[in-house]
């Protein structure tokens, strides 16, 4: 049922949307919304949209309560959400009031797309038909008993009996015969589907600190959000590497910390294997993202990496993204090597992420090509 409030509510959501858009850079750089993620939604604390009034500051004001307790007993933390209520108003938190707004990931992706001016991705393989969906669309005279349409069958029988004059309203007995039977019929609709897989790779050697990982984590959330909005089905895979590479789950991906050296080629090898074994490139849109601090073991290994990319990765992927997170220990050489070799190749995007503030620009660099 539509309600009067829908208009005002829609208006409110629109304002919220505007606020989120306005503050997107802040959210992205602070990663504020994590931990509040639901299945398809996130809760975002947005700065108050409430209308300002002249009102008393809370802390000087105090209030009156009722019940047990000694003078000096604490009633609750000052800073958390609900301070004690004052008067008969609900307690307002002092200072900036934040409102937790739930928003769907789909909507968030749209907002991000608008704000970063991300082009919509033209998926390859849209023409590929990967699924049929059955839909019951009509009635026919033949079919399996399990699909017999009870009501239509009896209606047909009633119709026949009336026309034959065998129907007696006083004793309404209806007996369907074989010709009366009606069955549901269906149509198989081809459902074009494009799938995508994101392969995240990250250097977990000693030089990648917590701060660097936090940046990767935040960035991966936004990349996920955007790509999810562009494809029907999406998978994420995670590879960590130091001198060796292995596949892990998402949790492990962000938690693991090794101390060994760095051989980037190990990750690329695993990535290439993953693609050739599991993701035929004519059916899948493939997005490898690699994050590291730019330190590689040796020039030789870098050379191997370039070869691997050229021969075994790039031909199959939509985009290969390399994000270099600045770290006090890394030399940051790798990004230079990549640019040197792939400057002309538009399947390769590199981005230097200097800090949290740079996340948004880096996302734009990665996704701005619409591939």
């Amino acid at each position: 049922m539509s309600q009067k409030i829908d208009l005002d509510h829609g208006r409110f959501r629109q304002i919220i949307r505007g606020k989120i858009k306005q503050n997107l850079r802040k959210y992205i750089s602070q990663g504020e919304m994590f931990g509040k993620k639901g299945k398809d939604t996130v809760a975002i604390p947005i700065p108050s949209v409430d209308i300002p009034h002249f009102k008393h500051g809370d802390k000087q004001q105090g209030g009156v309560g009722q019940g047990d307790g000694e003078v000096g007993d604490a009633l609750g933390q000052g800073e958390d959400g609900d301070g004690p209520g004052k008067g008969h108003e609900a307690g307002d938190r002092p200072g900036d009031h934040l409102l937790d707004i739930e928003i769907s990931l789909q909507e968030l992706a749209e907002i991000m797309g608008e704000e970063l001016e991300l082009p919509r991705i033209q998926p390859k393989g849209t023409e590929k038909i990967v699924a049929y969906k059955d839909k019951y669309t009509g009635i026919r005279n033949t079919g399996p008993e399990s699909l017999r349409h009870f009501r239509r069958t009896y209606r047909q029988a009633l119709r026949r009996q009336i026309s034959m004059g065998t129907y007696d309203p006083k004793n309404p007995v209806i007996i369907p015969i074989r010709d009366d039977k009606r069955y549901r019929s269906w149509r198989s609709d081809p459902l074009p589907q494009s799938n995508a897989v994101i392969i995240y790779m990250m250097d977990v050697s000693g030089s990648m600190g917590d701060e660097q990982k936090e940046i990767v984590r935040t960035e991966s959330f936004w990349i996920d959000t955007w790509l999810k909005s562009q494809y029907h089905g999406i998978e994420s895979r995670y590879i960590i590497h130091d001198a060796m590479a292995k596949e892990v789950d998402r949790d492990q991906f962000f938690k693991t910390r090794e101390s060994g050296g760095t051989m980037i080629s190990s990750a690329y090898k695993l990535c290439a294997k993953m693609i050739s074994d599991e993701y035929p490139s004519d059916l899948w849109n493939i997005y490898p993202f690699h994050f590291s601090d730019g330190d590689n073991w040796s020039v030789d290994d870098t050379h191997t990496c370039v070869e691997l990319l050229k021969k075994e990765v790039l031909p199959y992927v939509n985009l290969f993204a390399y994000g270099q997170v600045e770290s006090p220990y890394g030399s940051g050489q790798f990004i230079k090597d990549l640019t040197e070799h792939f400057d002309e190749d538009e399947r390769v995007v590199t981005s230097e992420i200097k800090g949290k503030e740079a996340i948004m620009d880096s996302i734009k660099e990665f996704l701005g090509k619409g591939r």
Partner: protein
Amino acid sequence: MASLKRFPAYLRDVQEEVEGYAKDFGLDFFPILYEVLDYKTMNEVAAYGGFPTRYPHWRFGMDYEQLAKSYEWGLSKIYEMVINTSPAYAYLLEGNSLVDQKIVMAHVCAHVDFFKNNYYFSKTNRKMIDGMANHASRVRRHMARWGQDVVEDFIDTCLSLENLIDPMSAYIVRSREPKPDADDEAEEQSGRMRSKGYMESFINPPSYLEAQKKKREEEAKKAKRRFPEQPQRDVLAFLIQHAPLDAWQRDVLEIVRDEAYYFAPQAMTKIMNEGWATYWHSKILTEKALKSSEVIDYADACSGVLATAPGRLNPYKLGVELLRNIEDRWNKGQYGKEWDECESMEQKRNWDLRTGLGRKKVFEVRKLYNDITFLDEFFTLEFCIDQKFYAFGFQERTGNWEIMSREFKKVKDQLLKMLTNRGQPVIVVEDGNFENRSELLLRHIHEGTDLDANQARDTLRNGAKLWTRPVSLLTKVEGKGKLLRCEDGNISERSADY
């Protein structure tokens, strides 16, 4: 609105029964029209403040979202809602148990009785449903003409100042027209010192009289130049009269002010009104309407209504306890000079003159008092101790809200302070031609609590939008006078004499 078809017969029977008891007890209310709503519609109606039609504005949508969410999460549920109109409209939540509906109906009877009889509601518009609908169509018309965004933005600006009204102005005379003939007489009188006839020329020499006259004239001139002559508490009215607004803007501002005045008495009598309603639902149910099988459910519902939590003042609880206390005192004759002067707690405890005036007294209280006068007069030391009241405050040292005192005087002061001007700061228009530059000077009448600084700045910006010239606010921050000035959206601050 009047789709009463949704009101089932069995509830009508309950209504009849409950209202019968209420009338027997002496409650006197407008006819009540109930409507049963599902929770979605209930939340919608609640977001609109109980009215079926309000002007379009996003904040209703925000309130709705919060109500809906808090219902879905099981944090709160609106049992009942009633609006001050004649006939009164009240809403019941579909799916509530019959006991709940009974309680609500008894509760509503008392609310409507309060609306009808309490002095502070006597000036409210009892046809406010039409009033609100009228406001809605006016705002819609402005939106159609000037654009939704423009009008909505302007409403935001107006709402930011909506608490700057003078709710008592309907009941008292703030300023009287000077008596026309008083002028001459005053001129004759003032300045001239009393003297016996033969001393006159010595005590009041012509030169002195001349000087006095001049001084008076100058003062009068000064007073005339002041604008407004007296500081004006109804800031909204001042803006409506004097701000350079377009016709539609003035209309919107009038609407906002109108509605603020309509809702003000409810904020002024919240404790009494809820106390009164609780008093009566308890009396009607426990003495008349309750079946023995319903007692447990009733007690459960009631304990929820009257629960207290640390650091929260439950208006239902405070109101009903104080009314019961008054009834008890007037039943036992615990009032008047002798009672006040009695020093012995022992004697006071056993004081019973069997006056039996309790019921009469509570009816009188519901007619004449508002929250402030109610508490000021009846919140006694005995009551304070008995009900375990305390004052709390924020302890900077620990970062906690703490119980500060159980001392009667402090508790009561705090209580009254919280209720003064509905808990809102008092802001007046001090000067409409500040520094002779047609700027506006507002003054915060500081009563011990500073303003919330961030909000004050934002609000000042909105004030400047309406006035279209710089607006300043004189206030005190941590004991020192401070002048905030907003020009073109920028706020500057300087210290000033307060």
